[in-house]
């Protein structure tokens, strides 16, 4: 583990910048985190990244805590705190001031255009996140079957994530993935 100030600064700058482009939440930024943490900085392997994603999914709370885990992996507890603060700080300050002024925005025409314009972009980002996770976790046939099986089931019926995760973990433990 590297714990130098330079690494912490790199973490802080990257996650603060990325947070401003995380439309629809932290999961939209998963491909960007993968690109930077795995491909550019080589902080994590593909395997470690998809494990971090899985562990964050298994932990209750907002999806954003995947960044805590990435920061922890790179620079220990301080790293986890720095990345989380960087990922949440700028957007929270922004939200605070927008919230204060929100009455003035009510019913504004650009409000509708903004949300309608962001829908297709969020869609493309979510599809990218699913692709990144599916392709970094495993290339086995069973992993692909779990992904597609979960996708089809969750499309037609409401599936509680924990049931899907539990079943998938058991299939993995059975040595089939």
């Amino acid at each position: 583990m590297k714990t130098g100030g330079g690494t912490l600064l790199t973490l802080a700058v990257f996650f603060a910048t990325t947070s401003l482009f995380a439309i629809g939440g932290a999961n939209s930024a998963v491909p960007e985190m993968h690109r930077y943490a795995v491909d550019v900085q080589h902080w994590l392997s593909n395997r470690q990244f998809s494990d971090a994603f899985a562990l964050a999914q298994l932990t209750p709370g907002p999806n954003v805590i995947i960044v805590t885990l990435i920061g922890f992996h790179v620079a220990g507890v301080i790293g986890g705190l720095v990345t989380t603060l960087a990922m949440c700080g700028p957007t929270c300050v922004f939200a605070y001031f927008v919230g204060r002024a929100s009455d003035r925005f009510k019913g504004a025409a650009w409000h509708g255009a903004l949300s309608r314009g962001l829908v297709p972009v969020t869609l493309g980002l979510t599809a990218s996140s699913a692709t990144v996770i599916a392709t970094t976790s495993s290339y086995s046939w069973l992993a692909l079957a779990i992904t597609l099986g979960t996708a089809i089931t969750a499309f037609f019926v409401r599936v509680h994530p924990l049931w899907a995760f539990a079943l998938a973990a058991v299939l993995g433990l059975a040595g089939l993935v």
Partner: protein
Amino acid sequence: MNSSLIPAANEPPAASPLPATDPTAESISAPPSLAELFIAFAKISLSGFGGVLAWARRMMVDERKWMTAEQFNEAYALCSFLPGGNIINFSVIFGGRFRGALGSAAALAGLLGPPMVLILIIGAIYSHYGDLPALRRALTGVASAAAGLMMATVAKMVQPLFRNRAIVGPLIAIATFVAISIMHWPLPLVLLVIVPVSIAYAWAQA
């Protein structure tokens, strides 16, 4: 994620008539204190797997009556187009509305503090045992299922987008996907081009 709405299925029907004997049923409770804000968001955070929206609504509107259903929807709609996690923005706006900047900080600390402690413990365990084949296989299974859940979300979002023979919306979604997943271009670069185009088009259509 759509799966975040599941806990709502366990709630009593929202439209059930209020008991006539309760004249205060429509009114809103006293504003929460800083400690109440912290505890409320910590509870929301720890009860929510795969999204915490449904739990937030249940506590804010049904249990504590800190806001009406309309106020909740308005505040949440506002959060959904701000950058960052919806529920994180919601905690900041909600806490700030009642107790200013300190209220925002208390709500945010409640939402993020407990899961951060948990994930740091999990991370420490993982750094010792992450190489165990059994753990690796189990986590691969979980990641595969999580990818599947996101695909289902995408499939549900796609349906309304393709209505009315729309072309531009789907093209923007595909362009975003290609730029990020296939070209591996940096997210800020991609969004600085695509978002203005998409919003300008939505604006022109209105």
